[in-house]
C-alpha cells in the first residue's frame, strides 16, 4: 500500500484530493477482506501457516495482497484458494526467509508473469493512462457540471 497515493504531485485543490482518494480506492482495494491467512496445509507441502517472525509475516501479508492470482485474475494471491496462488505464497515465504527484499520478490514475479501480476501497477509511461484516467474523468465531469450550472443560472427563473 505504498505506491499509490504519491503517484501525482500534491495539488492544493480539494477536488484533486478527492480524486486521489477515489483513484486509490479504485485501483488498489481488492475485493473481499484479506485479514485471515489461515493456510490449509496440503499433502506433501511444508506450509507452516504463519511465519515464525512477525515482521516477516507482516511483509508476507503485504506482498501477498499486492500480487494477482493469475488463474482467477481478480483475486490477490492472499485471498485465492487456487493451487497456483498457494504455490506463489510458498514462493514468497521462502524468499522472505532467504532474506530477499520486497523488490526482489516483485521482480521475481514480474520476470515470470509480467506486470499484470501486480495489483497496483507501478506508474510508468505504459500505465500512465490507468493512473491518469480517474483524474481526467473528474476534470471532465467537473467541467460539464460547471458549464451546466452556469447556463442554468442565466436562465429566467419562471421558465
Amino acid at each position, binding site marked *: 500500500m505504498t505506491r499509490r497515493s504519491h503517484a501525482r504531485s500534491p495539488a492544493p485543490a480539494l477536488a484533486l484530493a478527492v480524486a486521489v482518494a477515489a483513484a486509490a480506492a479504485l485501483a488498489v482495494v481488492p475485493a473481499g477482506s484479506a485479514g485471515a491467512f489461515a493456510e490449509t496445509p*496440503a*499433502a*506433501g507441502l511444508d506450509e507452516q501457516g504463519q511465519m515464525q517472525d512477525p515482521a516477516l509475516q507482516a511483509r508476507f501479508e503485504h506482498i501477498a495482497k499486492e500480487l494477482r492470482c493469475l488463474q482467477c485474475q481478480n483475486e490477490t494471491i492472499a485471498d485465492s484458494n487456487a493451487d*497456483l496462488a498457494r*504455490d506463489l505464497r510458498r514462493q514468497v515465504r521462502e524468499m522472505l526467509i532467504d532474506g530477499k527484499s520486497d523488490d526482489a520478490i516483485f521482480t521475481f514475479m514480474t*520476470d515470470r*508473469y*509480467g506486470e499484470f501480476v501486480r495489483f497496483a501497477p507501478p506508474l510508468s509511461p505504459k500505465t500512465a493512462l490507468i493512473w491518469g484516467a480517474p483524474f481526467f474523468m473528474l476534470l471532465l465531469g467537473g467541467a460539464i457540471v460547471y458549464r451546466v450550472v452556469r447556463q442554468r443560472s442565466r436562465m429566467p427563473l419562471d421558465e
Partner: protein
Amino acid sequence: MWKFLLPFAAFVALVVLFAFGLNPNRDIHALPSPLIGKPAPEFALSNVIDPSTIVSNAALKGQVYVVNVWGTWCAECRVEHEELLAISREHVVPIIGIDWSVDHGPGEREKAKQWLERLGNPYSQVAFDQEGRTAIDFGVYAAPETFLVDRQGNVIFKHISGMTQEVWEKQFLPRIAAARKGA
C-alpha cells in the same frame, strides 16, 4: 457548431474504443509473456516414465524444441492430446512434456504414466514437476501452455490453452523454420 461537434467526437471515440475492446478475436485473458526473447528457465526433473533418470533442458541446447506444460487434472490437456500426438508423428521437433502436479502429491506421476500408456505418448521426454516450481519459472498460470525454444535456448513463442492444428501450422511451424534458418 460545438453543440454538434463535441457529441460527434465523443461518438467517434467510443466507436474506436469499442472496435478495439469488443473485438471478438481479442483474447482478454491472453497475457504477453515476459519470457519471450529470454532464455528458457533451466530445469532438471525426474522422468515421469523412468524416475531414475533426469529430464533436463540443458541437454537440448543447440536444437529447437517445444515445451508443453500439462497435467492429468487438466481437461483442456486431454483435448489437445490428439493434436500433440499428430504433431509428434511429424517428427519436426522434440516435444518435452512437463507434468505439473498441482496437489504436489506423487499420485500425479502414476496418473500421467497411465494416461500416456492409454492415449499414446507424444513426448520425447516427460519431466515430473511435483512441486510446481518449474511451472512458476515458466510463468505458467493455467495448463496447458506450450513454449517454443530456439537453438540458443531462448523462448521465442508461447501459446496459452490447447494446441490445435491451426495454431501449430500458423504459429509454430513458420517460427520453427525461421529459427532453424537463423542460426
